[in-house]
């Protein structure tokens, strides 16, 4: 696939600006960056340059506004729509792109949740075969995941060419997934995160938010604890993802996608997380430069100091991980029967099961679950997690013993029958730290 000129529509958004950088750097393409306000696009360009650490691409980034859309699209080999996640905006934009698109060009949407098929239908019939969903993760320079979504209209050969281009030229980890709400990575990741939010409410008397994060910290195979991740992503974005999945899918874990009330309340109060200065957590800054990390107390609705929880199982795991004694660390997890260790292990087991289930439903291979979680979330991927826990215990037996509530709902033996060794090394993901 020979892509020399690209148009990114919605280039002032976080994703649009970063994706323009990926096309201009690895792709070596000339990129028209379209935004509502051309002055804002001009101010975005330095951010794009910085996102790939290459001034050399600056001359290939051309600012434009929506009045120039048809002209830019008509000159492009590939068009990437990265507008707001709003069906009206996206359908209107798709229709405009469809009218100007060259007959041999490719058009992509970066939507993270809307139906790619529905957007394909905004295009003239003869161009629908050239339309795909290409869902990248933030920031794309360090997160290589790229979910590729074909529709029933897509041309298979063209999809293969696009996949090759994304993989070899743009150095993406391409995972083909079905046109299903939120696709695969977010389906798995936000199932985990949202259930953790629910547990924070259930265990609010034990500490709630920071309590659950202390149980599921980086020593459990991730860079950032789950509720902290939600705060980082933005609670409004989190809500959009889980609401979409809850409303448009129905699987055995359906109830775990219900957004807890206290989170809705934060959103109503515009406490959206890191980007608005407060959310689940709040960093209080004093005039003298001191910073005080606080967390929402779900019971009182007030922010309080974070609690330095001491869980013997977690402290032992961290100690072992620091010295590279992973098996001893997992042994602590599996054989400690404190409430916290049991919550922790049950989350990791549920993660394995749900990942395999979702990979069957939304992906095409079992490895898809590994690729999305390793390269989109930087979490220990499920097959590697299975391998890690297998070093100390029979994971199938553990699942049956510990996850009694899902036992009757799904065919665990069937799911685990397809398990394969992971291509990822679990040791990289288990960290000793907060």
């Amino acid at each position: 696939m020979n892509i020399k000129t690209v148009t990114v529509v919605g280039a002032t958004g976080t994703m649009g600006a970063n994706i323009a950088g990926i096309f201009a750097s690895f792709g070596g393409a000339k990129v028209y960056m379209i935004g509502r306000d051309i002055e804002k696009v001009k101010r975005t360009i330095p951010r794009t340059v910085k996102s790939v650490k290459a001034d050399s691409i600056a001359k290939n980034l051309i600012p434009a506004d929506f009045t120039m859309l048809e002209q830019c699209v008509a000159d492009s080999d590939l068009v990437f729509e990265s507008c707001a996640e709003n069906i009206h905006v996206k359908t209107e934009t798709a229709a405009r792109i469809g009218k100007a698109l060259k007959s041999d060009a490719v058009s992509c949407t970066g939507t993270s949740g809307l139906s790619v098929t529905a957007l394909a239908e905004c295009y003239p019939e003869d161009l629908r075969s050239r339309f795909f969903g290409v869902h990248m993760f933030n920031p794309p320079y360090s997160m290589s995941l790229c979910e590729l979504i074909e529709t029933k209209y897509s041309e298979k050969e063209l999809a293969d060419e696009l996949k090759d281009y994304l993989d070899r030229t743009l150095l993406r980890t391409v995972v083909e997934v079905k046109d299903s709400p939120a696709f695969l990575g977010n389906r798995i990741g936000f199932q985990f995160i949202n259930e953790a939010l629910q547990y924070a409410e259930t265990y609010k008397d034990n500490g709630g938010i920071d309590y659950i994060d202390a149980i599921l910290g980086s020593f459990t195979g991730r860079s950032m604890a789950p509720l902290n991740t939600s705060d980082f992503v933005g609670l409004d974005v989190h809500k959009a993802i889980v609401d979409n999945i809850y409303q448009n899918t129905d699987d055995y874990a359906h109830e775990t996608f219900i957004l807890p009330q206290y989170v809705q309340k934060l959103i109503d109060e515009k406490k959206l997380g890191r980007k608005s200065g407060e959310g689940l957590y709040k960093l209080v800054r004093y005039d003298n430069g001191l910073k005080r990390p606080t967390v929402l107390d779900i019971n009182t609705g007030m922010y309080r100091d974070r609690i330095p929880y001491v869980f013997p199982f977690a402290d032992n795991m961290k100690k072992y991980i620091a010295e590279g004694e992973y098996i001893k660390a997992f042994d602590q997890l599996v054989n400690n029967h404190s409430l916290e260790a049991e919550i922790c292990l049950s989350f990791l087991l549920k993660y394995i099961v749900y990942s395999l289930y979702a990979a069957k439903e939304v992906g095409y291979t079992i490895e898809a679950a590994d690729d999305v979680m390793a390269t989109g979330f930087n979490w220990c991927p499920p097959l590697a997690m299975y391998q890690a826990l297998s070093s100390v215990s029979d994971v199938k037996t553990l699942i049956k013993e510990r996850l009694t509530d899902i036992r009757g709902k799904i065919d665990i033996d069937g799911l685990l029958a397809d398990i394969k060794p992971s291509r990822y090394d679990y040791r990289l993901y288990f960290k000793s730290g907060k």
Partner: protein
Amino acid sequence: MSKVYILGGAQTDFERNWKKEGKNMVALLKEAVTDGLANADITFDDIKELNKDNRVACFVGNFIAEKYTEQGHLGAFMTEVNAAFYGVPSARYEAACASSSVAIDAAQTKIKSGDYDVAIVVGWELMKTVDSKTGGDFLGRAAFYEKEGKDIDFPFPKLFGKLADETLKKYPIEEKRYMDALASISAINYSNGKRNPMAQTRKWFMSYEQASTRGTETNPLVGGKLAVSDCSQVTDGAAVVVLASEKFMKERGIKEKPVIKGYGHRVAPMLFEKKMADNAASAFILPWTRQAVVDAYKRSGLTVDDMDVFETHDCFTSSEYAAISSFGLTEPSREYEAVESGLISFDGKKPINPSGGLIGCGHPVGASGARMFLDLYKQVTGTAGRYQIHGVRNAMMLNIGGSATTNYVFVVGVDR
């Protein structure tokens, strides 16, 4: 004297930051040694057995853990990896960035002499324990610190920037042609690193254009004419290789493992200025680097025509440039020809650094010699995956310490 066979080895993923993972040097050693032994098909029980008759030893290469991790007596740390190493002879070897080459040399000597039958070489460095300026100061101790390092920010980029200046003085090459060749060297190493699943920069963007645009915000000058794109990386990592005697090979019935065919080890004057004064009578800018290569060719009975691939010490693009003629790929002063013609590119006839080298793969200083040696092993055994060069029979590496002060060369090839 016994031949010295290479059974295998492993390197850690050079993308990793062990401080961020909250892991210490013992964790690093455990992972690298466990993976290296597994690749070489040696178990901890084998080590216990061999040790009963004093047939196994360890050789640890590290430059300056005393600064980076506040730890000395590094040879003894093998006992923290596994109890199988209790009683196994082990010591640390140091020659700045050539530390693990001197460890390999010590190991091969003990195998040749028949003292030991299995030698485990571990090279490692954890460099991300401190900020880059502090780390740069630590590395200054690979030069004459009092005269070339103390109170200077980033002394090494400055020394290799001077090597670039001296190259331009010594040879009649135009500056632009030289700097473009250096940019190409950078771009080739980054591009090769994309093929290596263990390379630190495998996800990073670099192009010839970016490398040749020096003095910008994303590619600032760091030492004279050299910019960030001309530098190798600050890296955490370890590399392990396992060597064995002919006797061990026969006992185990192991066949078709590569052998060490030759080596060269020469030490140039410590001070950079003295090095340059010393080269006046030579056509080479680094005559002792060249001499180490010549020695290795002589010991192996091979010539540059026999070498199918090279791994070199591209701590800076200017050092790889000087290595080109040292290897004998061009006449001294005409190194640019090998860059411009594509000779040293991945698809060229004499590829240099298919692994990505120190620029693309990364440079945990005490591990780099062992990492290069491991890559020669991979190339000769056809196990380098996506960075495999087709049909490699013989391969050469050059590992330097300081400002090309310690020069180590090894030739690894198929056992004839």
